[in-house]
């Protein structure tokens, strides 16, 4: 038995660990049945989607082989444990890039599919699942299911965003996107309030591929922030930057993210960026994955860990709902280190349980201060529910079941595709088994 936690470090749990390495040998391993198991990639989910306390975890990191890459068409076939980073490092020098990646590239293909992750270009390119041409799923009874948007599409829709609960994904074919090189033309525009944010977001959608914004939820009424946008740049003559890697070496005895450090951080960040506002050229890595060079930054939140809280609410009520949430956080006074605001487009979701929907998504990081934090999160839940919104399971460790059920109307349809021998902390909490 091995102790494991997830990215939020809210707690550690005993797990029986089984490493998967060869797709051909997966079926007997997951069928060996000592109680329900769960696939786990890099454990970059913040809550309990990638945990199965007291149960088995099938680690997929070893399923790390490429199968084929057609440089003419940009179609890549690989095993599900391959890291998005390894795909990017292989394909970008050959003129292809993953169309959609989350804010870290240290995640597996299987994890990216199972949470149907989104990036800074949702308005243009949708989610990761939009670019999966086909996938291969193995069920614990040994059945192999090959599915795609047209072949057994119901299995595809259940598995993309399916939280690992429909079987183990062993292989996927992904359509990459042409790219001239690793560079991005970027622009940073400060905004003074949410009204300006929405104007900027609307004005950005047509002409910019990537957009994301940082919002200050500490000072005053909240709502001021920095809008960051980028487009792929033509090939450049300059050399690629050297990668510098830092690791947070120990868990500090208390959270380094507290009232004192967040306030100056937010102010400094805002000043600094305002000063640097304007256009510049950036490598895609620091722009798209700003924290990837600071290994184990999650340790900064101390031994009790932290919550990430990501909601999406419909656009019509978006401004008010976001304003109210920011006000709650400011009143609470425990500052959010990272508050990220972004709009999602109308594009229909691929998966039955995919998180993105048309509207505006707000992401907050909050150190775990026990009761006080729970109370704040409860107040935020009420605002999300009232706005007709939903929370992102990849980030969740505590949402009430009622909020999950109201947020995901296709839940009952999804349940038919669950594998009876797969279960996670999250599924037991939100689906009863």
């Amino acid at each position, binding site marked *: 038995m091995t102790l494991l936690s997830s990215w939020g470090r809210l707690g550690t749990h005993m797990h029986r*660990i089984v490493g998967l390495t060869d797709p*051909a040998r997966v079926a007997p391993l997951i069928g060996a049945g000592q109680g329900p198991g769960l696939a786990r990639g890099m454990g970059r989910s913040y809550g309990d989607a990638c945990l199965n306390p007291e149960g088995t975890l099938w680690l997929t990191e070893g399923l790390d082989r490429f199968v084929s890459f057609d440089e003419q068409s940009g179609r890549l076939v690989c095993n599900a444990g391959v890291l998005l980073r390894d795909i990017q490092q292989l394909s970008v020098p050959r003129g292809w890039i993953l169309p959609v990646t989350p804010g870290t590239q240290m995640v597996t293909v299987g994890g990216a599919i199972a949470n149907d992750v989104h990036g800074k270009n949702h308005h243009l390119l949708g989610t990761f699942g939009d670019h999966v041409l086909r996938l291969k799923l193995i069920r614990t009874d040994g059945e192999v299911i090959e599915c795609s948007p047209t072949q057994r599409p119901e299995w595809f829709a259940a598995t993309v965003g399916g939280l690992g609960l429909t079987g183990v994904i062993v292989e996927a074919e992904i359509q990459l996107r042409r790219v001239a090189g690793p560079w991005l033309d970027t622009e940073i525009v400060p905004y003074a309030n949410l009204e300006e944010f929405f104007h900027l977001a609307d004005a950005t959608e047509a002409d910019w591929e990537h957009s994301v914004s940082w919002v200050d939820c500490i000072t005053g009424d909240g709502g001021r922030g920095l809008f960051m946008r980028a487009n792929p740049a033509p090939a450049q003559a300059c050399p690629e930057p050297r990668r510098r890697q830092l690791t947070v070496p120990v868990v500090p005895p208390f959270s380094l993210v507290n009232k004192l450090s967040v306030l100056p951080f937010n102010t400094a960040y805002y000043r600094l960026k305002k000063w640097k506002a304007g256009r510049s050229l950036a490598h895609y890595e620091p722009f798209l994955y700003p924290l990837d060079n600071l290994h184990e930054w999650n340790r900064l939140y101390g031994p009790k860990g932290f919550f990430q809280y990501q909601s999406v609410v419909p656009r019509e009520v978006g401004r008010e709902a976001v304003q109210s949430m920011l006000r709650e956080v400011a009143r609470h006074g425990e500052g959010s280190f990272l508050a990220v605001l972004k709009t999602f487009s109308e594009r229909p979701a691929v998966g039955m349980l995919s998180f993105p929907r048309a509207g505006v998504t707000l992401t907050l990081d909050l150190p775990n201060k026990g009761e006080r934090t729970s109370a704040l999160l409860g107040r935020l839940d009420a605002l999300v529910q009232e706005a007709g919104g939903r929370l992102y399971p990849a980030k969740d460790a505590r949402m009430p079941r009622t909020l999950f059920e109201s947020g995901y109307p296709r839940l009952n349809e999804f349940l038919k595709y669950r594998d009876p021998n797969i279960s996670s902390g999250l599924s037991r909490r939100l689906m009863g088994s």
Partner: protein
Amino acid sequence: MSSTKKIVIVGATSAIAEHCARLWVQREAAEMVLVGRDAARLASVSADLKVRSPQSSFRFLCTDFLDSTAIQATVDAVGAAGAPDIVLIAHGALPDQGECQESLAACRDALMLNGVSPALFAEAFAEAMHKVGRGTIVLIGSVAGDRGRKSNYVYGSAKGMVSRYAQGLQHRFAGSSVKVVLLKPGPTDTPMTAHLKTQGAKLASVESVAAQIVAAIERGRPVAYVPGKWRLIMQIIRHLPAFVFNKLNI
């Protein structure tokens, strides 16, 4: 005459060997021959490497690792396409010690696979390299070969044989351009140790072990422990007096 490097990997489906291969082709295009016992598994390793390095060429051969005639034929087939620059001999399996004590057949199989088979491959390649007067043979021993222990002396003694064989070859080729490198990995996270991982053992990552192996081969070290800390640990274990050692439950 810096043509592409010719690299042969025996036991090419081993996780440690596969990660070495990735590092080699990532650095520069190579001509690789992958030797194993199962065509489907070799094909998937070869496909992966081809995606990583389209400029490299890959060929794979299946053989019987316990049959001296088959081993000689494999080495001859490899040599026909030119003498290799590097041969990495990586196959092995961790047997169940208890089972080896109960069944002589199991004991023999483990000794053959982990000891005799790598020695025969090394001998055959040594002869080929002797003829052209250059090349590097890399053998994977183990820290387990440094001192016999009750929990795994069948595997350990076979690995000890690999060490001694490497030492003999080093003596034979001293002063020539044929190099022999012996690697001694500590417990590493690969399919071979999957059951230890389930029990919660602490294992080195296969990526880091492979990186250290590739570096050790490049430096041409005669013996390298990977990770390096095992050199000291094994020195202590080797020198523990028997009355102390025999009390240890290892």
